[in-house]
């Protein structure tokens, strides 16, 4: 049986089974009203926890005001149902979908308004701002006429029941899972893993942060609506800072980034205080001690970032009886490389900088830098430490805004563009200290970089529309194909940080190539490599140029590599180009020898060895 299909069947069966059993028990009275209401609170808390996990676990931003969004949803939904049923005489049950949705949407609007300023900034601003928001919203609600002032609103029709809560909870969980496994979910994860690298593979970090945060607020609003119709009375005081912290505790306990972990934690932590009622005064103490012990022994939460999988359990159980043979289908149709998307004349440079310069305060880090890169050329950028080489890369990729000059990519200026836009325009890079999405697999790392070449919307990702399936399938094949070119296909499913060092460097290059660049910038690719690995790297770089027809600009201190594969070399010192030419000219340039190479035979030796390698 197809694994995917099996997982659908298993999960669907489990969901239905739980539903049928529990509602039958409630109907039969075996679960009394008190326990039924606890089950419903668990459902509401699951929605809250799972949605907060999207912000805190998957996106990696600490949010301290999740209960604030819940209160927005609760009041909105409560007021709408009350007034529709009282003023227009509607059946309260018919109002429920409208008021829940309205509550969710208003919470989402709030989320968006807070997220836009807060998430543009780097650092822990979101935590502070959401903390403030939670308090502000409470104070506002306590002072508004429409929300009933300090006493809140009461007599909201108590029309919520187990079925409604269960269905909505399942929907939210399913949406989280499907979203998480779409290109959008990958983009969100990659931001948590390494925001700088995400931006450099073409992902708009700000946009996705706001998207995830707004989405989470929407679900919190829905949960609030359910809560209002469950309890019947809503007061702002019940959504204070402590409430937000409670949800955060559930997320942390379940495991940041694990949806099933959140479900379990929400269940346990809702149930625990109720079960401990007989200890009366001591119950909060027991609850707290249980929490502390949990965090001591499982600091990453119950599940870490892993997910509980029914398919896995099923397979393990059936595995006792039957031995399963796994035959993996493989598509060997060659799909690479992409056809280069540009046509420049053979003489026109692909990339050109004109009088490029940048000043940091009083420090002129780069000045009057004129570089050009021709089609299919491998060019070196060398110079003493602190000469401004990486600074030039950062200007080319939009990380720094140059204070002078211009950068032309195929004749068009890219100055002022954002990093992720420059990636789609065709400049990709690697980093001096490797920046991979460490806890994602090798294959997923590549897939993140294919982000901009897929086009399906979040909705088709969540609903699994044909476009989603088609694009994801195509990308899977192409990502594996790309790995095969670099002999890394075998490692596709292991975590990126489990690769040996040299392979990590290779993966980073591979990921950069997946964005289909015209220009590839490599920042010290051979750093930390031994001579054998460096030689392999030289072969890899030549292979890239030949197979992917990209121009390569590389910063490197390993002279064997630079002299061996670069056609031209620029030398930078104190932010200025002090020499340009072929390897032979560079190694004999007295100024370069003095500032950079040291012993002139340092270069000569390397050139000889490089040439020998090139000929070999």
């Amino acid at each position, binding site marked *: 049986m197809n694994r995917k299909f099996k997982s659908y069947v298993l999960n669907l069966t489990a969901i239905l089974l739980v539903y049928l059993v529990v509602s039958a028990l409630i109907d039969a009275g075996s679960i009394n009203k008190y326990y039924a209401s606890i089950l419903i609170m668990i459902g509401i808390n699951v929605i809250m926890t799972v949605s907060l996990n999207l912000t805190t676990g998957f996106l990696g931003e600490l949010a301290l005001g999740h209960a604030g969004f819940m209160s927005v949803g609760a009041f909105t939904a409560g007021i709408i149902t009350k007034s529709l049923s009282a003023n227009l005489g509607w059946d309260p049950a018919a109002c429920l979908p409208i008021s829940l949705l309205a509550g969710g949407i208003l919470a989402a609007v709030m989320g968006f308004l807070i997220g836009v300023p807060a998430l543009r900034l780097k650092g822990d601003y979101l935590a502070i701002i959401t903390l403030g928001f939670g308090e502000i919203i409470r104070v506002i609600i306590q002072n508004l006429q429409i929300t009933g002032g300090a006493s809140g609103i009461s007599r909201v029709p108590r029309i919520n029941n187990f079925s409604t809560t269960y269905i909505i909870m399942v929907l939210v969980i399913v949406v989280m899972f499907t979203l998480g496994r779409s290109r959008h979910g990958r983009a969100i994860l990659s931001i948590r893993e390494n925001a700088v690298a995400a931006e450099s593979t073409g992902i708009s970090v700000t946009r996705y942060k706001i998207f995830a945060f707004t989405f989470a607020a929407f679900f919190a609003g829905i949960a609030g609506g359910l809560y209002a119709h469950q309890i019947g009375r809503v007061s702002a005081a019940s959504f204070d800072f402590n409430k937000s912290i409670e949800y955060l505790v559930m997320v942390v306990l379940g495991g940041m980034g694990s949806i099933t972990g959140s479900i379990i934690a929400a269940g346990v932590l809702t149930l625990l205080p109720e079960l401990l009622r007989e200890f009366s005064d001591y119950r909060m103490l027991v609850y707290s001690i249980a929490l502390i012990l949990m965090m001591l022994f499982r600091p990453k939460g119950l599940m870490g970032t892993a997910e509980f999988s029914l398919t896995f359990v099923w397979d393990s159980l059936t595995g006792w009886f039957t031995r399963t043979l796994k035959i993996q289908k493989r598509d060997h149709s060659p799909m690479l490389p992409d056809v280069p998307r540009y046509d420049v004349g053979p003489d026109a440079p692909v990339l050109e900088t004109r009088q490029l310069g940048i000043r940091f305060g009083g420090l002129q880090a780069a000045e009057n830098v004129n570089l050009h890169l021709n089609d299919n050329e491998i060019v070196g950028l*060398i110079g*003493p*430490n*602190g000469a401004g080489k990486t600074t030039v890369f950062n200007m080319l990729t939009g990380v720094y805004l140059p204070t002078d000059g211009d950068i032309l990519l195929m004749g068009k200026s890219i100055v002022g563009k954002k990093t992720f836009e420059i990636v789609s325009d065709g400049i990709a890079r690697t980093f*001096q200290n490797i920046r991979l999405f460490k806890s994602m697999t090798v294959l997923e790392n590549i897939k993140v970089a294919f982000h901009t070449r897929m086009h399906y919307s979040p909705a088709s990702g969540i609903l699994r529309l044909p476009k989603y399936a088609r694009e994801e399938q195509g990308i899977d094949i192409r990502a594996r194909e790309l790995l095969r070119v670099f002999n890394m296909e075998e490692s596709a499913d292991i975590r990126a940080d489990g690769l040996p060092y040299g392979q990590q460097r290779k993966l980073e290059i591979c990921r950069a190539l997946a964005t289909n660049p015209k220009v590839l910038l490599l920042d010290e690719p051979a750093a930390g490599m031994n001579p054998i690995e460096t030689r392999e790297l030289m072969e890899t770089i030549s292979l890239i140029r030949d197979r992917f027809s990209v121009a390569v600009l590389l910063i490197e201190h390993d*002279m064997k590599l630079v002299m061996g594969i670069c056609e031209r070399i620029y030398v930078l010192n104190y932010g200025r180009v002090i020499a340009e030419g072929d390897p032979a000219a560079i190694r004999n340039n007295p100024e370069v020898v003095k500032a950079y190479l040291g012993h002139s035979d340092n270069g000569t030796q390397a050139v000889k060895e490089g040439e020998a390698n090139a000929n070999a």
Partner: protein
Amino acid sequence: MPMLEVNNLNVFYGAIHALHDVSFRVEQGEIVTLIGANGAGKTSILHAISRLIPTRGGTIAFNGQEITGTDAFKLVSKGLSQVPEGRRIFSQMTVLENLEMGAYTRRDKGELDSDLQMVFSHFPRLKERVKQMAGTLSGGEQQMLATARALMAHPTLLMMDEPSMGLSPILVEEIFAIIRDINKEGTTILLVEQNAHMALSIANRAYVLETGNIVMEGEAALLLNDDKVKAAYLGT
């Protein structure tokens, strides 16, 4: 008595057995280098000695004293310093503050100035940037700073993890000259390097590591001419 004696050291990362019964020693006044491919376990050895990762079984004696039960931060005042790989500098502090932090455990603050002059003479570039935030230094400059900071602690045993990484050719020569100088001034050195050629040419003795096992040891000068070492690590 060797200055550092490691016996049957084992390190596990989860289920992965990273170091297998590793034994070696460093005598007073020596430069000893560990060479091997990436992932062979060189950095793990340094981390194990610095007590930055837990070990399972085995002993580590520093000046005859067992240190497997000692906290990492206490080792510095015992005279054991490490230059970590990957430039772990204090990025929100100035260059000068970083260097002062290096001298944190020392009692004889009076020598601070002369020590600063000493590291600046080795790394004039750092003197130019003395008031700059360390995080804004270039990669190679951060590497110099990490080395300079370790020197400020006046260690008796200095462990260096890839000190030449990211340095320009002229500075690579410079850094090896510095290593030789501080060794002559009395500091014993345990060196991990990818640049095996340079490392072997300044070291007294060397150990070759393969997938967590020591597979070869001997006089550095002899290993430099060993055919197997040449083929596997020197690329000649």
